[in-house]
């Protein structure tokens, strides 16, 4: 269970600190999928970065816990080990580090922190092969540098691959649909749906209703100007799509 309570954060700019999150309260019970929709600049991506521990943002108030553990006290790697996974909107290219080295280091770092036995070379190979096959990822991708020269679809599929391997409790998907055509979107959505589990929860951040046709949310929240202005069922996303953000935000205000 992820519990976010009155979470506030700002970012330092040339003109001083600017408040981005102005008190976000949100509970996601295990097994549920929540979506956050909102216009540009509403604080969607900031929320994902703050939860993952990116140091550009200062948390100025509130709390965030995962199964009772205080996330905000932890380093980014401790949050990852505690079970938080962030699928990046723009997966970072890392020249010179090939995929298999990256995955091995990542999986074993997480296993070590969780007090599990590290996987040996053979176990690792098996895991990578199985998960790649499930997601239709070709083996030769493992020899390439992380995200370097990957297409938009490959990058997002790679995020889902890592999600599948690291077995998180709570996944944040930050605009996973951006830069994807319909076919790639389906592949990625299928990958996410396959990971749905009574013990795992998801927070899906998106601009568009489209992604939610493929990953059905239990709850939809609308974020505007750093606050959740409305919460409802999946029908809320459709209503939002019909009216557009500006009208919707005005009505709610």
């Amino acid at each position, binding site marked *: 269970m992820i519990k976010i309570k009155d979470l506030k954060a700002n970012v330092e700019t040339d003109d001083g600190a600017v408040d981005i999150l102005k008190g976000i309260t949100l509970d996601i019970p295990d097994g549920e999928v929540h979506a956050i929709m909102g216009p540009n600049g509403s604080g969607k991506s900031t929320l994902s970065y703050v939860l*993952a*521990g*990116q*140091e*550009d943002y200062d948390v100025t108030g509130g709390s965030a816990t995962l199964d009772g553990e205080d996330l905000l006290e932890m*380093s*980014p*790697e401790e*949050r*990852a*080990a505690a079970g938080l*996974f*962030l699928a*990046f909107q723009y*997966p*970072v*290219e*890392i*020249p*010179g*580090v090939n995929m298999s*080295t*990256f995955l091995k*280091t*990542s*999986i074993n*770092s*997480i296993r070590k*922190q969780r007090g599990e036995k590290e996987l040996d070379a053979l176990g690792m190979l098996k895991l990578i092969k199985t998960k790649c096959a499930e997601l239709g990822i070709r083996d030769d991708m493992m020899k390439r*540098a992380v995200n370097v020269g990957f297409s938009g679809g490959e990058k997002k599929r790679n995020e889902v691959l*890592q999600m599948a391997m*690291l077995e998180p409790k709570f996944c944040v998907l930050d605009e996973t649909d951006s830069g994807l055509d319909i076919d790639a979107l389906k592949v990625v959505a299928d990958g996410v749906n396959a990971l749905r589990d009574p013990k795992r929860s998801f927070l899906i951040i998106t601009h568009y209703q489209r992604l939610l046709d493929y990953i059905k949310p239990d709850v939809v929240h609308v974020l505007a100007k750093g606050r959740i202005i409305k919460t409802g069922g999946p029908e809320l996303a459709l209503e939002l799509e019909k009216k557009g953000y500006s009208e919707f935000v005005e009505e709610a205000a």
Partner: protein
Amino acid sequence: MPITAIDPDNLPTQKVEEWKFTNLPRAIPANLNRDGDAGEHVIHIKRGEIRDNPVEINFKGVDNAYQVDHIIITLEEGAQATIIERHEGQGAYWKNHTTKIEIGKNAHLKHIRLQNDTHDAVNTNIVHMTIDQNATYDSFNLNMGGKLSRHEIHAEIAGKGAEASFNGANLLQGSQHGDTTIVIEHQAPNCQSNQFYRTLLDDKARGVFQGKVHVHQEAQKTDGYQLSNALLLSPDAEMDTKPELEIYADDVKCSHGATTGQLDEEPLFYLRQRGLSEAQARLLLIQAFIYEAVDKVSNESLREEILSITTTWLENALKA
């Protein structure tokens, strides 16, 4: 053309443009014993001969010694060879070397230089080479040693269709000073030259990269590439870079670039989100930075050897 080593009685000063970043007189160890004879190493590969096993030359530095060596490498037409130079030593010394390389038509030379002299040593090496028609020169210079080192290369790409690659990595720490100076003369058409250097500087180390590509009027269709990237691990480290292109032909493709900076935050955060500790993430990214240069070494066993040397260096440097 005879090549003379740096004259120990008339050292270049920083007033000379080519030496403005590198203060040689200040670095020469005091009380060097200058009685020794100059050594000569001749490697001559005959017409059409293909040497499968690498030819190794080892240079051991001796405490208090002034060591002058001349290396003369000749590949006749169609010959092929791999040459490995290894530099090590003990104590404070000055290795003052000249290298003359002639690569004949259709000949192929791979040249690896592993410079791991002591941190009290000075290593200066002036290389002059000519590369003839359709010949290739493929080199890698790993520069880790020396209080002061300067690797100076003058290459004449003299026959059409020739290709030359000058790749390398500098790993410097403490108060080490490493200077790479490369001047490439493109004198013939349809030739290619590549320079790719990665420099890692810790503590108060200082790196210098001066690379010049001079494309003569007759050298049409030249393809020249030059890139120097430096990563500073400490606020006291310094990198001086001087990339130069001088082009007189009108149909060429030349590019050059130089960067100096610190590790990017974005990949660090990405790796930490995937569970790597900050130290692990830094090591992985710095390794990758150097590996991209080492990856240019085409001989697999040498590449593995260099990777292992650089990894050990990095693990020690980052532990400290």
